[in-house]
Every structure is written in structure tokens, then in C-alpha cells.
């Protein structure tokens, strides 16, 4: 399990970096991308990435689109789970891809550890 990594995607590099530090404190390996397009490339290439935690609103590609595009591009048998973070108050579950965990900013630590725990085991 240790090999499995979490990819953190956010336009705001400060959030991504702080989150990486926090995840490492709780024993989760995390890598950071602050571009959605870069992130899309990386998740397909890096076989160790089991989970993507992405911001919803980003300049190049929003979180929902990133999820669906990555899912389409993934080869058979590769399972990547998604957590979307958002500071917006008007996003409902229906507008999101299925089987995605939505966390409102600012999230609580327990919400994040629970979500990651169920994914990474």
C-alpha cells in the first residue's frame, strides 16, 4: 500500500503544498500539480497514483471535466478514485461525475482522512 500515491491538483500552489505536508503528517504520500492539464498527463503515466484530490474551479479545466477525461483515458484495470474540493456553495452532486467524493472548502481533517482511508484502505 505504501507505493500508492495521492495526486493533489490546485491552481493555488499554496493550498496544494500545505495539503501535501498535512497528508504526509498522516502518512500518505502525495504529489502536487498546479495545472489541470499537467495533472491529467501525470495520472495516466504514474501507475502508483491511486487517488486524485482536485480543486473544482480551475482555469484550464474544471475538476468535473478533469475527472471524466481522466476516466476515459485510463487503461482497463487501472482504478483511480477522485475527491473534489470546492469553495463554491452552489454546486450540487448532480452536476458532478458519479462515484466522486465532494468536500467543501475548508474541509475538516476527519472528512479527508475518512475519504482517503476508504480509497487507500
Amino acid at each position: 500500500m505504501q507505493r500508492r500515491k495521492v495526486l493533489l491538483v490546485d491552481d493555488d500552489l499554496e493550498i496544494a503544498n500545505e495539503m501535501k505536508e498535512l497528508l504526509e503528517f498522516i502518512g500518505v504520500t502525495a504529489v502536487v500539480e498546479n495545472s489541470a492539464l499537467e495533472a491529467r498527463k501525470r495520472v495516466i503515466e504514474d501507475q502508483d497514483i491511486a487517488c486524485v484530490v482536485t480543486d473544482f474551479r480551475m482555469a484550464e479545466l474544471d475538476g468535473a471535466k478533469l475527472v471524466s477525461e481522466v476516466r476515459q483515458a485510463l487503461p482497463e484495470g487501472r482504478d483511480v478514485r477522485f475527491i473534489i474540493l470546492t469553495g463554491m456553495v452552489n454546486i450540487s452532486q448532480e452536476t458532478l461525475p458519479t462515484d466522486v467524493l465532494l468536500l467543501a472548502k475548508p474541509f475538516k481533517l476527519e472528512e479527508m482522512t475518512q475519504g482517503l482511508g476508504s480509497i487507500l484502505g
Partner: protein
Amino acid sequence: MMTVLEKTIDGQGRYREILGCLLVSILAAVLNMLPISLGWGLDIILGPFVIMACVRVMRPSLLVLAAACSGAVSAMIWHHPWAALILTCEAAIIVGLRARILPIIADLAFWVVLGMPLVLLTYSGIMDMAPHTALLVAQKQAINGLLAVSCGELAYCLYWIVYKPCQSAFPRIPMEGVIMASLIVTCALPVLFFTRVVSLQDQTAIIDRAGIRANAGLMIANLKIAARLPHCQKGHNSGPSQLTQDLTQCLQNVKGAGGNLGRVYARPAGSTTFLPVGAPIEPGDSELVTRAARTKGGGLVVAQAFGTPLMTSLAQAAVGKSGPGPGKIANLIILVPVASQVMLAQNLQSRSISLLLFLIAALILIVSVFAVELKVAMQRVVDKAMGLSRAANENEMVPFEISEREVFSEIEYFSRQISDASLRVADQQLALRSSQRQLENIATKAPVIIYAFRYGSGNEPAPLLLSNKLWEVLGYPPTTFKGLGWWRELLHPDDHAAVMREKLAPSVGQLKAKEYRLRRSDGQFVWFLDSVFAEQSEVGALETVGVMIDVSEFKIVEQQLLHADKMASLGRMAVGIAHEINQPLQIISLLALNVQKGIELDRYSPDNVLAKIESMQLQVQRARKIIDQMKMYGGNYGAGPERVNIAQVVQSVMAMVAPQFQASAISLHGERLSNSAEIIANRVAVEQILLNLILNAHDAVLSTLQHSRQHGVVTVACRREGNSAIVTVSDNGGGVPCTIRDRIFEPFFTTKPATEGTGLGLGIAHGLARNIGGDIHFENVADGAVFTVSLPIAT
């Protein structure tokens, strides 16, 4: 009576006028009941004399009322309303024309055109009077009326000569009026007197002669009936009904009872009915018999129609006489017909009356045609009598005579004009006073403050009118302030500059409105809307008339509405604001968690902790900036109008809405925002205008592009056009549908669901732009709408 009427037009008028009217009515009514007989039922009535004496001084409506009242009372004795009606018409026409036509001439015209035809119509047509008698009555009425007017004029002239009232209410009487009146009275009195004497003599003579014949007829009838009676009563002595039957038979057989002197009727003892002796000769006899029976000793009896005696049906006139009959006959009555004699006598009356009427008409015509000549002649007579002709004798006579004549006619013409004018003035004064009273009521009782100023040569305008309502509103006693300095003293300091910038005296024909605050006695300020109109007065000075309305409550509501709209705008930006604040909150939260974990796991040095806290502070500042921007906008209009750089306002508004646009993934572009145009306005108001327009564009784009792949774009651009700063807000939201394009600036008009929009935005933006002196309009372009705000650039 005249002293009662004096001063009726001015002073405490109305009460005295009504009292005067009452007195005139009573006096006229009493005089109407004391007629002067001209014989054969023809009477001169005196009531109109009183009425006509007041033609020049009484208010027209009251004079007609007096005529109607006096006539109505008298109509009860005359037993018909027609005479009263015609006399009222006469008074109405004369008083109605008094300012234009001499009363005497008006009266003559009335009788010829209206009065005499009316008398003929009513008396002959409705009351069945014989036509020639009706004509006589009509002529008499005309003479009665003309005489009344003449005597009235003379009485008024006499009053004028004695008291010389120098008021417009008592106009001078023109000289030809006096001449006409004098001539008419001089002619009419002897003729009427003669007619009266002769007619009454005739009347007595005819009755006397007929009475003698009646006595003879009675004697003959008595003898004839007595001779016939024994044949009828043979062997029958049973019961009164049998007796009446017998008598009837018997009396029918008495041929020519009264000889050829008259018709005889007999009443049996114990009965009340008169039976004709011989066949009844005339159809109206039964009424004549009843009258004759009531007349003690007999006399002239005439059938009555509508209770009018004598004149109504002279064709049936007879002299009746009654006396005791023979045997069982209690009473005998004989009717001696005198219709033909009466007709003869009436012919004489008729001739003198028509001659008199003709004479009067001729006199009036002559006097009015030769009015000037007559007056010159009279003046000369007067001059000679006073010995003033001596001086004229020494000079040359002929040229003087011509100029004297001309001068006299000129003077007379002018004095006539003046006297006519004074009558007209009196009428107009009444109308003027009534409208003045109405205006005063409006000025004092209306819930607005009305004022009028005249701008003379001095610095300060002179107040012509200022309603006390102002002091009521402001709470000062009306005498607190002298002059006009109070206005500047009470004006709110913030409004000083704005109000004073406008010229104090507006130019002619211009309506100006401004709003400002004045200090109340308790220190609070009252908002006034002051609309003023300037015009050139009749005397050439500039005058202003204005209305001030207390609009404080409207102002409060207006401010509340503006505030509500601002709050609504903030609400519309909530999504963007929430996101913008959640972002720093997320970072702060992460920093805090890291500090916590770092210390727990003993991996953090104090420097690490300090660095994290530093970052937290920065994030707090970031959040605070957003809140500050919204707070500034959400506040009330604190400051007054100031110089505002329009491009700067556009930039700050764009910053405010940027998060919302980001949240909705709509692009917001600014163009040419380096413009330096400045306007004078309240900064928050300009922000509100732009915010409403930009948010409106945002919503339009959001609703139309929600389900399309097209990218929403809103562009805000500044430019300068002449003296206006122009800001355009364009979008690609599809434009405003034609069906609602006339309504989008209406307050509360919205296409959004009730939970999302108040419908105030565009309306308020429009109103605010108008307040600053600008305007907003919009047009549809290829894929959206362009809203253009133009605001006047400060000089």
C-alpha cells in the same frame, strides 16, 4: 330702500344684498296688490316700478329673484301665473342687457319681440280670453312695463342727483335715458288718467241703464207668470216635488217672460235651483244666474275663467237683477245682456291704449336717434338759464357752435362708455372676487407651500405670497423671520453649493425643480421639492411662482429602496464572494492543521510555526480585503456629490464582481479604462448604476448560455463623447426580447423567478442616472445587448 342698497357691491356685501332683495320683493308684492283700475278689469300694477328702480344697482340674479317673488305672491290674487312669469322675464332681460342697452329700449324690444306675443299666447290660448280683449291686455302690459322702467329710471336719477354716490356700484345714468323716461311719463300719465275716468264713467252708465231695463223686465215677468200660474195649480196641492213639476211645466209655457229685455229664471219656494222661464237662451247662463243670486241688489255679472273677472269673457257680460216672484215662486232673476255695450266701451279703451303705445315707441325711437342733438339743445337751455350764454354772445357764434357740438358729443360718448364700463366692472368684480376666494382657499389649505416673488431693481426679490404652511411644516411661529434671509440660514450646509450653483432667478418661461433640506425648529431637516416657474408680469417685472412639497417621507423610502437594491446586488454576488472567502479559509485551516500535527509529531521548530502563522495573517488580510470592498458598497450614501473619475469607479466595480464572474465561468473584460473623465455625483450611486448593469449582463449571459457550449463574455468600456462620459456594458446573452424592451426600466419588472430578482435593478440604475443628469439606453446587437450610460462630465 336706496340706502339699504347702498354699498351692496362692496364691504360686507352679501348679507346686505340679500336683505335689499327681500325688501324690494316685499314692497313690490304689496304694491302689486294695490292696482289702479283703468275700467273693465284693466289695471296698472305698481310692483314693477320698484323692481325697475333697482335695475342699475342690484346684482342681476337677486333682481330677477325679487321680481319672481313679488310676482309669485301677486299671482295668488290674479289666479294665474302667466303675468308673473312674463314680468320676471322682463326683469331678467333688462338687467341682463343693462351694461349694453338702455333699460327703456331693452324693455320696448322685450315687449315687441317676446312680451306681447307671450301675453296673447297665454291669455288667449290658455285662458280662453277673447282675442281682441287679449290684445288690449297685451298692450296694457307693455305700457305698464315701459312706464315702470321710466319711473324707475327717474327715481334712480333723482337719487343720484340728491346723494351723488361716487362708487362704481352706482353708475351715472345717461342723459337720453332721463329724457326718454321723462317724455314717456309725461305722455302716459294724462292718457291713462283720461282712460280711467272715461272707462269708469262708461262702466257706471252701462250698468245703470241695464239696471233700469232689468227692473222693467222683472215687473213684466212677474205679471206674465202670475197670469199663467192659476192654470197650472188647479186641483193640485200635494207635496213640494209635485209642485216643482207643475211649476216647471207652467214656467216653460210663459212665452217671452221679460219681454225682449232679458232672460228670466225663477226659483220655487223651498228649492235652491233656478228654473228658466221659457227656454234657456245662452249656454253660460247658469253660472251668471248663480253670481246674480249672490249679488245683493244685482249688478254686472260675468262668467269667470281661472277666477279672473270681467276681462276674461266680456262676450257673456250681463247685468243681473233679482226680485220676489208671484205665488209659490220665491225669487226671480233677470239677466240683461250688455256685451255689445261693453265692447263699444272697450273699443275706446283699446284706441287710447294703442295710441299711447305707439306714441311711446315713437318717442323712444326719436330720442335714441337724436340723442346727441337733444342733449346739446338741453345743455344750451340750461346754460342760458344760468346766464352763462353772455360770454358766448361776445364771441363769434358759428364756429363755437360747431366745436361745442363736437366736444359735447365726444364727452357724452365717453361718459356713456364710462358708465357702461362701470356696470361691466361691477359684474366682473363679483366674478373676480369669487375666483380670488377660491385661489386663496387653495393657497392656504392645500398640503403644499405656494409662493410668489417679484424681482425688482433691488438685490432681494419682494415676496408677493408665501403660504403659512411653510412655518407649520418647519415649526416656527410665522413672525420669526424678517425678509428672505431665513432661506439661506435654514438651508442644509451640504445642499448649499448645489442649490446656489443654479441661478436664483430662473429665466422667463422656464420651470425648474430642485431638492434641498431646510432646518426645522427642532434641528431636524426636512426635504423639500421646490418647483418654480418664472414669467414676465403685466407690469414688466420678473415674477416667480413656486410650489414646495415636503418630500421627506419619499426621501426616506427612496433611500430604503436604494439600500434594498444594493443589498440585493450583494446577494447576487454571494456565490462569488463565498468562494473568494472560502479559499483563504481553506489555506488558514490547512496551516493550522499542519502546525498542530507538526507540534504533535515534534517535527516543527518555532521558526516553522512562526512562518505558518505569518502565512495565516496574509490569508486573513486577503479575506478581509474582499469583505471591505463589499462593506464599502453596502453602506449608506454618506458623502454628498463629489468629483468622481468614472474609469476608477468602473475598475472598482469590476473588482467587486470578478469573483462572481469567475464562479459562473463568464469572462469580464474592461476596455479603455485609462479614461480620465470626471463627473460630479455620489460615488456609491455611480457604483450602483454600473453594478446593476454588469450583474444584469452576467445574469443574462448565465441564463441563455447555461446549456450551450458558447463562452459567455461581458465587456465594459469607457469613452468620452462631447460633454458626456459614456460607459457601455455589452454581453453576448442574446439581447432583450422585443416583447419586454419597453418595460425593462420599470420598477419590479423582472424575468427572473421571485426568489432570485427584485426587479429593481435596471429601474434604479435608470433613476440614479437621471438624477445625476444622465441617461441609460440600450440596443440589441448581433448576439446580445449593449447598455449605454451617459453622464455629464464636470466642467
